[in-house]
């Protein structure tokens, strides 16, 4: 009896509880839907090998599709987690920065003013690195404003939120630039059996985890997020750490932008990354991270991002249109934040205390 209680407590305090429960719920909905429609109950989980004309043999299935499509949000969520943790604010510019990086990359590859090309103007690596570098520059801009000018993160990133997409359009000369070259499609295509975006996400996650765990950076970020003043007195350069998290966030926005643009082999400035900043923030919240800064869990955020994609894909499967899907997202956000809010938690605590008191009596 005592043992059972202990494990229940352990589960309750597990920091990945919220995202995992959400993911399991989504899977349950899928299974019920498939049974109700007379399909194979496990259709959601089935993965098959499929021959394609473009990519050879690839893995095919709903889960693979979710892992593939959710990758941009997952990459963004990594950077967003660090930003939220260190500065207790959100970077709302990531979607626009994605679009700017994609535009810059495609402009480099195609040459200014060219709207469609099949031969690359510069080597592929130069274009891609240029795009990612643009993300880093945007991150530095945001980081300077937040860390050194002490401007509220949301306002500081509001500048690039409205400007980055517009600058991207200027770079592309108000055109949609197509790069019809097989090598550019690689980042949004398949590598062997697996989708490349998924592999890129995994590499990003592994590198950043190593960086956080093998050096003291992870601890520094948490400490700055919990109390910037105390961390400064303890000898940390709080400003530089906050700056660094924004640069990392910009870097990941750049990578996500390249992936998103490679998927459609073009730079559609108006649509790349639209509303993705909201998904990334939602992923962080869904991952069980407090938006007030401090302790964070990268794994939670990544699971959160894929959960959101799973929800979106499930909604589409249920026949909800893309424009109507936000209603459900809103309801989910409200439920999550209401559960996490202090008054509600206090209420439950009081209720459980009262129960205990009754038991004792």
């Amino acid at each position: 009896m005592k043992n059972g209680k202990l494990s229940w407590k352990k589960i309750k305090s597990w920091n990945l509880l919220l995202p995992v429960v959400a993911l399991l719920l989504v899977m349950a909905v899928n299974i019920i839907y498939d049974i109700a429609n007379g399909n194979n109950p496990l259709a959601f989980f089935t993965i098959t090998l499929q021959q394609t004309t473009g990519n050879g043999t690839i893995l095919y299935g709903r889960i693979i599709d979710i892992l593939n499509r959710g990758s941009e949000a997952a990459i963004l969520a990594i950077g967003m987690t660090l930003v939220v943790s260190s500065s207790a604010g959100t970077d709302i510019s990531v979607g626009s920065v994605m679009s700017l990086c994609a535009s810059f990359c495609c402009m480099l590859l195609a040459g200014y003013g060219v709207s469609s090309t099949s031969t690359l103007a510069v080597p592929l690596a130069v274009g891609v690195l240029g795009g990612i570098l643009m993300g880093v520059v945007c991150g530095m801009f945001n980081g300077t404003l937040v860390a050194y000018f002490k401007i509220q993160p949301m306002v500081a990133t509001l500048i690039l939120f409205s400007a980055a997409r517009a600058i991207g359009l200027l770079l592309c000369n108000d055109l949609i630039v197509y790069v019809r070259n097989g090598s550019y499609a690689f980042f949004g295509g398949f590598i062997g059996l697996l989708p490349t975006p998924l592999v890129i996400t995994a590499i990003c996650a592994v590198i950043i985890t190593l960086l956080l765990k093998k050096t003291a950076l992870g601890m520094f970020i948490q400490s700055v997020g919990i109390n910037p003043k105390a961390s400064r007195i303890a000898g940390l350069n709080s400003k530089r750490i906050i700056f660094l998290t924004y640069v990392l966030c910009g870097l990941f926005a750049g990578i996500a932008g390249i992936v998103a643009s490679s998927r459609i082999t073009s730079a559609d400035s108006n649509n790349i990354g639209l509303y993705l900043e909201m998904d990334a923030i939602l992923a962080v919240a869904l991952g069980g991270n407090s938006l007030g800064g401090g302790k964070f869990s990268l794994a939670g955020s990544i699971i959160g991002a894929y959960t959101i994609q799973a929800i979106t894909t499930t909604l589409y499967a249920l026949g909800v249109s893309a424009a109507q899907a936000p209603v459900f997202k809103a309801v989910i956000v409200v439920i999550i934040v209401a559960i996490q809010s202090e008054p509600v938690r206090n209420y439950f605590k009081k209720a459980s205390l009262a129960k205990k008191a009754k038991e004792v009596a």
Partner: protein
Amino acid sequence: MKNKKLSLNGHTLLLVITIALFIVLYAGGCIAYGAKGFSHLQTFCNVLITNAGLICVSCGLTCVMLTGGIDISVGALIAMDCMMLAVGMSKGIDAVPMIIIVLIVGLVFGLFQGYMVGYLNIQPFIVTMAGMFFCRGMTAVICTDQVSITEQINATFYKWANAKVTIPFGGYVNNKGKYMAPYVRPGVVVAILVLVLIYLMLRYTKFGRSLYAVGGNTQSATMMGLNTKMIKMKAYVLSSMLCSIGGICYCLNTMAGSVSQALGLEMDAISSAVIGGTLLTGGVGNVFGTFFGVLINGTISSIVKTNGKLASSWPNILTAALLFVFIVIQSVFAAIREKSKNK
């Protein structure tokens, strides 16, 4: 007393800069594009007509920002209002009941958001982001197509939209020799009325002053005996109500409902308020500055439109650059104040 009014502290200085910037921008536009008719009073009236909805929304947003919060659901709420008006009227409901319905929806929506922020103590950004998702999605649930309001659908609403409130001065004689009196639409009258009322409310009523108190320091406000939770909730209700009024003005201008309407309007409203001198940390700002913020945004896009050759993305970039300049100035002022406090 007089002395106190004359001394320029950081915030009044910012307001002066804002007003001066507007005058410089407008004068610059008049000099550069005078030949294209920019110097007519009608150009200014057109800026007001296009931005009538934005003025109402920004006033509400300023009240929320005074408490240290933010409301990013406004753009989506406007889209939902317009869609409700368009679909409701095409289903045969008359204009006045439809407007009352829209206002009630705004009230309920504001109560919900305000309760979440005030009583459940959830970050305003997250609550209103959920609100934004909800409204955008509901707009699509109501109808996914673009619905126009024509004269056949509702004659009253059509009449309101095309009514002209002429101004007795500042007209010009056009090239056919006919005198053109400048005019504004009824939406502008509503917007100006809202602006004046909110200005008076913030300055002279108990509720208005308590908004500043809560934004300046929530803890002290609580200790003073103010019901801070209630005040925060009321601020969000006010914002959503004004947004609904703004939505009606917006609909009078566009005469249609569509899912992608008023996309990004929340950011225009926030940047207007910030350019107008409202601090996002709360406690400082007034709607008068916000009004000039809206006018500056409107003038920039008007100049770009009159030029005709500049790319459509320039207004966004210029507004963002202005926003950048203003928040850096604000942060420098804040740093100076901190230093003088420490001394």
